């Protein structure tokens, strides 16, 4: 059994609490409404309630290397139901953010997808086809081929443009804002 010292436990819970969305973690009463509400909970190795318990017990590596948090589809059912107003969906995103930033490698292609989506914002407007292609090249070409019938239905109707959307003036501003955010996050203090 993995044991953690009180100091380690305190450090991890504070770390999550410092992340946007993690602020209220200490107010959780472990009622389990979040896990019970979650439409994808059967795919989670550790359901949301358990993740909160594990964070408070300092199980840092176990939480951050698990694929669990990446199954969150951000539907907010837990958030509107939580009797303590914790916003579990945002708390789960905080876990995802720490895992991504620190280079943990949970075995799920969703992390690659999230990274691709985040980086695609830099060009100002999203170009779906390029996000999809990049994703399948990085994860599984076979999966990409399997999705071809759906993609073709969309492409043939002009619903998935093969050319990138026009660059708007704001694109440069978005790139600059993202750069500023990243450098603030890197310099520590602000997350």
């Amino acid at each position, binding site marked *: 059994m993995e044991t953690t010292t009180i100091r380690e436990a305190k450090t991890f819970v504070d770390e999550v609490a410092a992340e*946007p969305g993690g602020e209220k973690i200490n107010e959780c009463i472990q009622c389990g409404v979040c896990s019970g509400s979650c*439409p*994808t909970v059967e*795919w989670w190795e550790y359901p949301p309630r358990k993740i909160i318990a594990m964070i408070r017990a300092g199980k840092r590596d176990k939480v951050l290397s698990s694929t669990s948090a990446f*199954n*969150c*589809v*951000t*539907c*907010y*059912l837990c*958030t*509107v139901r939580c009797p303590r107003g914790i916003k579990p969906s*945002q708390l789960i*995103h905080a876990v*995802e*953010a720490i895992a*991504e*930033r620190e280079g943990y490698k949970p075995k799920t*292609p*969703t*992390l690659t*997808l999230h990274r691709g*989506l*985040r980086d*695609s*914002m830099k060009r*100002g*407007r*999203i170009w*779906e086809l390029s996000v999809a292609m990049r*994703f399948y090249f990085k*994860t599984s070409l076979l*999966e990409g081929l399997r*999705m071809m*019938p*759906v993609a073709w*239905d*969309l492409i043939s*109707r002009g*619903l*998935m*443009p093969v050319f990138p*959307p026009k660059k*708007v*003036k*704001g*694109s440069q*501003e*978005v790139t*600059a*804002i*993202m*750069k*500023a*955010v*990243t450098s*603030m996050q890197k310099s520590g203090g*602000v*997350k």
Partner: protein
Amino acid sequence: MRQYTYFPGCAMESTGKPIQTSLDSVTKVLDIELKELEDWTCCGCPGESINELAATAIATRNLALAEKTHLDMVVPCSCCYRNLLAAHVTYTQDPRIREQVKKALGVVNIEYKGTLRIRNLVDVFINDIGLDVIASKVQKKLTGLKIANYYGCHQSRPYGPDDFEFPVWQDQIVESLGGESVFFPLKAQCCGGTQLFSNKDMIYKLLYNILDNVELHGGQCISSTLCPLCFTNLDANQGRIKNRDGKKFTMPVMALTQLMGIAFGLKPKEVGLDKNISPALKALEPYLKVTV
């Protein structure tokens, strides 16, 4: 004529084209003018899962631009709506995040005061236009059509203003068009969003649940929220999901505004119905001829 600032969102220029077409036509009938926000960019939603601060900052840039128009901003895409509204709420209520966002936006000399009102289109239909006006525009009553209204998550969660778990506004609109709205418990269940790419089995299960639930409660078609993500997930993936009888689903899926357009007597092309992948046009064919 009512005027609004309009934030289409990236997907309205691709998978959401049929919705955009119908929305243009229907707003014209209802005397609504949507003025597209100049120089809008991605709402920030795609970055939310792993970098909430970046998502908030990029959203706030759009809010700051829209604020200068002094009009309410209408957002049809649920994901954009939720992320922009979330940014507004965080920015105005959380001083810690506000300072960081201010700093990031300072780099490009943009400042948000926090006065913008962000609304979804269904809210506008119900509260600004009104059901009586919508009913008065109907030329082809959708009598006898059993319509299941699918809301998805973000149109009413987590900020409302419709009910969080069992929203009703789309049902009310559909009934004012003469259709029969069918209750099904999963009306605001998640469609799976972008994880369709990375977690296909899980998302197909979610989509199966919704489609199966509609069939079970006797829905003949789905009138979907105006979110291009929900609409496309339901519309384009049915050929890959099997129903209880082991056959592929063939549930007609259309956006709410497409349905409204047909009831207002518009032609299928004017509401983008030629672009739906599911047999939506076929389901509405009987209503193309009848007039009230």
